[in-house]
């Protein structure tokens, strides 16, 4: 019965996110506030269903459901949806939903298509501490990605305004100040949750392996990236930086971090791989 519900929800989730994406796209194009309200309600519905799905799966299989790539994809979709929804509600601005729901939808579609709900996983990953560490790390990465996307949007809109072009981007996106504010919330959420994820990772390593830090490329890169973000935030906050430069930093900073992780994963010899 429970497994049937898990499988059914696995199909339902992309449908919900897909529909929310369509409504956000219509809202972006027509700017009819009713569409925005419905899109937001549908997204909230999707998040609730997703949460039930993850909890049900965790209870049924007795592990935190982030033990393989496709489960992680679903968690990234969930995290992105949650962070975006919080940003949207805080700023009462839903015109950027289209871009994030596209990401959420894609990740969930791939996850739903290839996930195997058979409960097979490494015993090491059944530890709840691993789950919480991974959950916060993915939440942090999703938040930083959202912040980077806001940086990109700022950049694009600023370019349009400078070039005196008044197309779909100019018409559809909110003001530069709003985009910057939303990006700041994303990066701050990312900094906090990624920091928590990394810290829990070190703590878990200490408990299992007996040392707090290991000179593993993936860990080193993550730690450096987080410290860079934290220093960057401090500089921005102290010097009151804003505008185009900040948006470029948010975008390129994340791209650099992402590329470094990719390179380390592909070329580096890391112990920090469980799949």
């Amino acid at each position, binding site marked *: 019965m429970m497994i049937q519900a898990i499988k059914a929800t696995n199909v339902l989730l992309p449908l919900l996110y897909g529909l929310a994406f369509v409504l956000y796209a219509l809202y972006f194009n027509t700017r009819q506030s009713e569409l925005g309200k419905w899109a937001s309600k549908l997204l909230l519905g999707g998040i609730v269903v997703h949460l039930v799905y993850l909890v049900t799966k965790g209870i049924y299989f007795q592990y935190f459901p982030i033990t393989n790539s496709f489960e992680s994809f679903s968690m990234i979709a969930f995290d992105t949806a949650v962070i975006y929804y919080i940003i949207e509600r805080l700023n009462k601005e839903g015109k950027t939903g289209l871009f994030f729901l596209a990401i959420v939808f894609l990740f969930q579609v791939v996850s739903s298509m290839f996930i195997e709900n058979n409960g097979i996983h490494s015993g090491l990953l059944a530890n709840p501490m691993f789950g919480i560490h991974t959950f916060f790390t993915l939440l942090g990465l999703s938040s930083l990605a959202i912040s980077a996307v806001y940086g990109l949007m700022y950049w694009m809109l*600023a370019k349009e305004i400078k070039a005196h072009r008044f197309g779909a981007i100019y018409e559809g996106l*909110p003001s*530069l*100040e709003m985009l910057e*504010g939303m990006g700041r919330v994303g990066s701050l959420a990312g900094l906090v949750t990624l920091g928590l994820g990394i810290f829990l990772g070190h703590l878990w390593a200490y408990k299992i392996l007996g040392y707090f830090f290991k000179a593993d490329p993936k860990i080193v890169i993550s730690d450096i990236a987080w410290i860079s973000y934290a220093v960057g935030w401090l500089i921005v906050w102290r*010097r009151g930086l804003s505008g*185009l430069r900040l948006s470029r930093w948010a975008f390129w900073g994340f791209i650099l971090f992402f590329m470094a992780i990719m390179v380390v994963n592909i070329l580096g010899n890391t112990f920090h791989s469980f799949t």
Partner: protein
Amino acid sequence: MQNNQIVHIGYSHKNASVAVRDAVSLSPDVALAFIEAGVNNPASAIQEMAVITTCNRTEFYFVSNRPEILKDWLFSEYQLRHHLDLSQTDAVPLILFNEDAVDHLFAVAGGLESMVLGENQILSQVKSSYDLILSSGYQFPLLNRLFQEAIRAGKSVRTNTALCQGAVSISLAAVELARKIYSSFEKRKILLVGAGETNELVAIHFKAIGATQFIVANRGVEKRQKLAEKYAAKAISLDHLEDALLEADVVIVATGSQHYLIDFALMQRVIKLRNHRSLLMVDISSPRNVDPAVSKLDEIFLYDIDHLKNVIAENLEKRRGEIPHAKELIATVNKDYSTWLKSLDVVPTISKLAGYFNQIRQQELEKFVNKTEDREFEHLEQLSKSIVKKLLHYPILNLREMANGQKLDMSKINTIWEIFRLFELEERNKEDKTN
């Protein structure tokens, strides 16, 4: 009542010069005096009356059973009150009847008839006219409902179409641009370089969206202080422009200077000192007062008058594209009003028709009062009622269906009244009541 028609007589930018428009324009008090004069004078045959008066139009809406005399009455009122002989002007008033008049009012409320397509102010002016009807103390059921529906049509057009969106004046276009950069203006500093009419208009629009902090930079002391006082702004001379540029979030330049007041080197310096904070600069001057090279700096969004004119042209084009949609919405409201109006018409007609048939029935029955026994008379009475009921069944049913299906107009109703001489019946009933 059945001959009543809704009549529009009006002057606007479409049929009258600005001189005529100025001359026929009425203040609310005078408009009310016109209404009182109209409805209190039986010779004018005006049952209901409303006036819309703005800088671009003065329009009169009447409900009257003698529409042919309204123009002369209106001209005589202008002659009497304004000493204005409208027959001597070259402007011919626009006169519309019934559905055309209704359609016109809805289009006016929707902004379709405005000089600047989709202008927003007109809806509040229609609301003012409606308030004037309410405050007059007269019972104007047809116009009351008509103006309510016009306001609904105006709101519907504004909510469901983009007809009234996008700036269509230079000063509003500047404000609209600023709104794409900043989401709120309470803490934003607006630097106005120049203290002329253009910058005053800009200040009005910025104030309307919440801006409270203004700096006025101008060569002339008197002018800059006058404008600064109006907006609680800081007044500075052009010598302190660089300091003001460090603080400002939006700069509007509108002076008569023949050379650049702000050049690339100045802005390069300023941007560094501003920690590369974004800055919107709108140069409305002709010739330009801001060196176009300034736009090479990443953080500066520079617009000149030609850019703004393009914005306006694009917005007007978009508005024009919304006209069919706006007309569809207006047609829907018009249909609702017509249905209501026709349902009003058909009820008294049915009642009069039934009254007419029953009168004949009773007249004929009376011939048998003393000629038949009571029981037989009762049978005759029942028979006559049954016949009348059957005779009236289809006419009444069809009248109702025609009214609901929008197939009934005033001319058809009038024909029914004329065929059955219902006007005479109504007059007789009135006389009976009086006696």
